[in-house]
């Protein structure tokens, strides 16, 4: 009897790329729902637009590159990139903001480098950074979180604003948007207010920004689930969060009036989204276990530095991209000791 041959091993494989991507998408749901609850319909539009743009762009480039379109699209990586970018965008940004961001992320940051597995930078963060540098005004269009004494835009008005940039009579853009807690604290520290004064404002909640603390909490829960399902390993999140915690603690101890508390930093802005979903993008991160710890720590420290002294309210995107650049070097210097060798470099 004849049989087909193959190379070992032969057992059914234990992991699957599509399943991995599906798990990431599932884990994003609680955070996305929370974001939607606090910031309204704009969040949903962003996600829809970035996801469809990302998938369309990927399909077009694959066709141009004469690669199998459906087989590659089905790995789910384009849609994940789109969703991560969508979650980072302000809810009232005009429709072309997510389009431009997603196009840049997929075409330039991903496919021009060779597609999945070959991009040195996190595509979603490249898209985000391009937007924040090119369109700083549109990137501040955050609405006030639900629960604050401010106008909350209903569905139809949001549609109008996002797709036609038109507002109802008697409503100004200023009245429907509001700076984020990180942005506000930065401005007001500059105005010589103390942290306790800043935190007493309605924009702030029990331990961080109003709404943002819960958004970060839900991303944390999703991230922990991912870790529990072994879709990500603990090194990068632990590295990033502990570095951010330690650095902010040091400054907080030194001067509690001018620096935010470690808890504030851990639950503000994109900290948890970044730690569990963005920094853990394996393609652009360091790949050795020890290297991932350093990689995460670098992101944590840079995030704090940019938040504190940089020109932008949040620093996660820049921190991730800067550490992406350092990843190959980190990998080189953190090779594990191979079994039977005395140190990593001997041969």
């Amino acid at each position, binding site marked *: 009897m004849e*049989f087909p*041959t193959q190379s*070992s091993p032969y*057992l059914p*494989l234990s992991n*699957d790329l599509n399943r991995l991507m599906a798990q990431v998408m599932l884990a994003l749901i609680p955070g996305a729902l929370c974001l939607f609850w606090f910031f309204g319909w704009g969040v949903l539009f962003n996600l829809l637009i970035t996801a469809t743009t990302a998938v369309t762009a990927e399909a077009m480039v694959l066709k141009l590159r004469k690669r199998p379109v459906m087989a590659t699209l089905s790995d789910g990586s384009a849609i994940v990139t789109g969703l991560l970018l969508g979650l980072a965008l302000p809810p009232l940004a005009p429709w072309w903001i997510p389009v431009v961001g997603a196009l840049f992320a997929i075409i330039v940051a991903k496919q021009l480098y060779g597609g999945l597995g070959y991009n040195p930078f996190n595509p979603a963060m490249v898209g985000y950074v391009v937007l924040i540098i090119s369109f700083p005004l549109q990137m501040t269009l955050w609405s006030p979180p639900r629960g604050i004494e401010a106008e909350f835009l209903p569905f139809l008005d949001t549609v109008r604003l996002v797709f036609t940039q038109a507002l109802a009579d008697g409503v100004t853009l200023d009245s429907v948007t509001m700076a984020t807690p990180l942005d506000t604290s930065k401005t007001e520290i500059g105005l010589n207010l103390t942290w306790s004064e800043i935190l007493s404002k309605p924009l702030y909640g029990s331990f961080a920004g109003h709404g943002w603390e819960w958004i970060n909490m839900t991303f944390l829960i999703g991230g922990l689930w991912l870790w529990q399902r072994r879709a990500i390993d603990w090194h990068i999140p632990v590295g990033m969060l502990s570095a951010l915690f330690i650095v902010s603690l040091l400054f907080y101890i030194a001067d509690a009036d001018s620096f935010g508390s470690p808890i504030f930093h851990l639950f503000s802005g994109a900290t948890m989204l970044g730690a569990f979903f963005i920094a853990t993008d394996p*393609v652009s991160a360091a790949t050795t276990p020890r290297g991932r710890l350093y990689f995460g720590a670098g992101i944590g420290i840079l995030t704090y530095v940019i938040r504190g002294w940089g020109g932008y309210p949040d620093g996660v995107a820049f921190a991730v991209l800067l550490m992406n650049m350092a990843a190959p070097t980190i990998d080189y210097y953190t090779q594990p000791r191979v*079994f*039977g060798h005395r140190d990593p470099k001997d041969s």
Partner: protein
Amino acid sequence: MNDAPSRRLPINGQGIFALAACTIQRLMITILEQALNFHGGLRLDANKAQSLRTPLRQASIPERLFVPLSQHIGEAAEPLVEVGDSLLKGQPMARSLSYISAPVHAPTSGRVIDIGAYPVPHPSGLKADCIVIEADGEDQAAPSGLRMEAVFEADPADIRQRVRDAGIVGLGGAGFPTSVKLNPGPDREVELLVINAAECEPYISCDEALMCCRTQEVIDGIRIMRHALHARQVVIGIEDNMPNAISCLQNGLDEAGDTDIRVIAIATVYPAGGEKQLIYTLIGEEVPSQGLPIDLGIVCHNVGTAAAVGRALLQGEPLISRVVTVTGAGVRQPANLDVRIGTPIAELIAQCGGYTDKVARLLMGGPMMGVSLPSDAMPVIKTTNCILAASRQEAPQALPAHPCIRCGKCAEVCPASLLPQQLFWYAHAQDFDKVQDYKLFDCIECGCCAQVCPSHIPLVQYYRFAKTEIWNQEREREKADIARQRHEFRLERLEREKKELQARRAKAKKALNKPKAGSADSKKAEITAALERVKARKAEQAATARNTDNLTEEQQTKIAEIDKRRASDHNENRP
């Protein structure tokens, strides 16, 4: 330059220290009470129960046996028989000519009907030379000189020779000649003999069956090995999912009163049975890269090999049969059988009730490191531990590969602590220097990385490719080195010859130029002297009689003709 001699001194302070440290380390090998865990590894479904439902049984002898001449690592054996020869069971059929080789014996009595290339279970898929035997059904044994009466008083060299004569090779899968591994070498003391009974691959249960059903043979073999190696300690490393085998061994050892042989249960983690992994698990020491266990004072043998040694030296039977697990959802009655070497796999499957409808793939060995066979028309050889007739669920078709996303799951499970993702990257790019920087040659090809890869990349295949390419390049380089050396020698020779010629010419010129200084008189005198000499020689020639002088005319003309022809031949042969 000044410190060069001191560096060359065989013993300096550092050397003595290193030597002392090494000796102490070797004498301090302690078997850990609590076995360690090596890095990575996988917990796989054992799937051993189905083949252990029935006890180990004897497989029947087929009508025809195909016995390959190379069933081991090293050189193929050289046939001692010819087509038509009658054979008795256990009679040597082929001898080993080099140190790393093993002889082959007739598995049963019968007649040699062919010696030629037949399909063999080898990853290359190529045919190899086999001796084909038609069994006569008598199974008559040849007298054997292998048995030793007082084996525990015997000289280790004598034991090694008999193990070698019995054709015993490592039965765990590698097939390295056992006699070589029973020889630690001069000035090497063996502190610890490790018996590898881990049997870590799923589905395979031949060692477990052997330990349960032939406990005495196993223990005898281990004791002979201990004696041959003068090993101070012996430990049997066995996975903790084989409680029956553990208690059988323990009872057997207790009965024999041999308390020096210890059975240690280790965690069931694939690949716990890898030699280096097993040693690490038992004593917490790593065998150096590119090194051997003996560098730590350890020798490691498979438990099946030990049983074969016991059988050969106590019962006089060379290695002509082995225990094979026939299992998988593709075969009706999975079982462990004692099979004669050379039995066609198809025959073996038939003895286990034949294939089921589910059969999709045929493997020799386990599902992690086994060989995928193109057909069942191949014989069982000395290293065949398992025949796995797998269903589509057990061994599905390879899925299309996605790009590597560097998720690092492979590095998590690598028992050698390598970075398989980096190895893949450089193997894929054919950067063979870099792939060696990342320690490609420490890869044991266990397959853990490929097993967990979410992108379904056949990683092991890439590493094998890179290794083969590097070996080829090295061979090519060696060849090129020899060619270059030859070329350089030739150039050197030509240069030397040219110089010598020039020197000779210069000398001749000098000699010619010299007499110019002399007068015309002296020249004339020289010429007359030369003429005188020629005249004298001619006279002398005429005076000496030649043996052709007194010949007939006919003979004279013949000689003249021959001389003429010779002269012309000589001229023609000139370029």
